[in-house]
């Protein structure tokens, strides 16, 4: 595949095209990803998540500076929600990072969630692999503004930053319930606004309560992305935390866990499709329901009959090959 060569040579156009291929879920993506896969595993993958408007994009913009000062190549995937009604999306994260657009060592890609729940998009995990193979040192994933259930970035990133800001009242209360558990690092952004110290204390308190290991509490850092304050400290903590992950062996454990989840997800997806095709559920369900309604067939008898039909068709397929 021509794209692959271009990607490995670090060319932008093939890279961008390849990401579209996985976003659009075209069948060519399978060969693409499998051929790139041996070249992956070198990049550090950071997830940035938190409620809408907390300052995630502004923070990412500043972190790009720090990474560039180390001569690291940086890629960003920034996800915004698609409208469930029209499928359209207004992708605005990039606006805050646009001053990096002429730096050839920075690649920024906006993605719409396209109906995927969980704060990321279907294509995201494959897009990460493409960027990794293309040789970026750091890949930053900005999720959509999250609520409690949208925490899938944990399954994609090596390390997750949860960004909070004062004045978000109820949102933070909800966060404390579940999302708190996902942060390796907490950023209280907008420290220029009143209430940030108090929020920091609250977060530390909650973390303390819910931790079995008080010595290993995740860092909570006050910052102002807009005023470029606290960014150095945050960035240093990030690096330290990452080194810890590598040394402790926790990083490879996390990555194995990620592969496990991903394989399961793809297998289930494919089996589901196969089943759909062979059983033709959509075409037949009205008829089956009618039979069961009229008591001409019993529910479980009906279901098992269809499953057996599926198995038989699979065996027929097998013997054909």
């Amino acid at each position, binding site marked *: 595949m021509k794209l692959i060569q271009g990607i490995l040579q670090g060319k932008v156009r093939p890279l961008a095209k390849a990401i*579209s291929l996985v976003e659009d*879920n075209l069948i060519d993506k399978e060969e693409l990803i499998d051929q790139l896969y041996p070249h992956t595993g070198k990049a550090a993958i950071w997830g940035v998540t938190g409620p809408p408007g907390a300052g995630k994009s502004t923070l990412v913009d500043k972190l790009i500076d720090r990474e560039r000062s180390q001569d690291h190549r940086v890629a960003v995937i920034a996800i915004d929600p698609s*409208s469930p009604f029209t*499928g359209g999306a207004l*992708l605005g994260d*990039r606006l805050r990072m646009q001053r990096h*657009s002429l730096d050839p060592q920075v690649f920024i890609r906006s993605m*719409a969630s396209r109906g995927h729940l969980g704060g990321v998009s279907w294509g995201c995990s494959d897009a990460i692999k493409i960027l990794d193979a293309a040789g970026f040192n750091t890949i930053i994933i900005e999720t959509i503004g999250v609520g409690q259930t949208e925490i899938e970035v944990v399954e994609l990133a090596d390390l997750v930053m949860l960004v909070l800001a004062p004045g978000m009242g109820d949102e933070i209360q909800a966060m404390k319930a579940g999302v708190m558990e996902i942060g390796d690092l907490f950023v209280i952004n907008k420290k220029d606004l009143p209430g940030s110290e108090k929020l920091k204390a609250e977060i530390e308190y909650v973390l303390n309560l819910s931790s079995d290991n008080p010595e290993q509490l995740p860092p909570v850092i006050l910052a102002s992305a807009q005023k470029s304050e606290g960014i150095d400290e945050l960035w240093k903590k990030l690096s330290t935390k990452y080194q810890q992950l590598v040394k402790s062996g926790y990083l490879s454990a996390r990555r194995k866990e990620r592969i496990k989840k991903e394989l399961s997800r793809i297998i289930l997806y494919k089996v589901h499709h196969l089943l759909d095709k062979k059983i033709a559920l959509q075409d037949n369900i009205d008829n089956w329901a009618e039979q069961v309604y009229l008591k001409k067939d019993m529910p479980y008898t009906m279901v098992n009959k269809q499953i057996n039909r599926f198995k038989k068709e699979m065996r027929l397929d097998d013997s054909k090959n």
Partner: protein
Amino acid sequence: MSSKNVRILIAKPGLDGHDRGAKYIARALKDNGYEVIYTGLRQTPESIVQTAIQEDVDFVGLSLLSGAHNELFPKVVELLKQNQAEDIIVFGGGVIPEEDIPALNQQGIKAIFTPGTPIKDVVSFIEKNRKT
């Protein structure tokens, strides 16, 4: 689950500080089911083109009030070509005199929408020119 979504970059080159028009069109295109990337005020042709390539958009819509369209619009087309990205379709909008339009078309700006153009005209332009 496979689907080709149309992606559109709405960009504002030039020095004027008004982006109401650009924001309006960005939102309207979103409401018509497209994925729209908006990058804010005062973008150079160079940054518009790099953004279009990284984002792998199908269309670039340029919005301009400042009167520099005769230089800036063709510049974007030219830079796309230099980057082997001439398949990205460029259209323009804003306060643009009728008499400038033929020359802009000739230089590769596929359509010009002047103020008051109904959004459905823009949508039908996109539907006619999209790849799939």
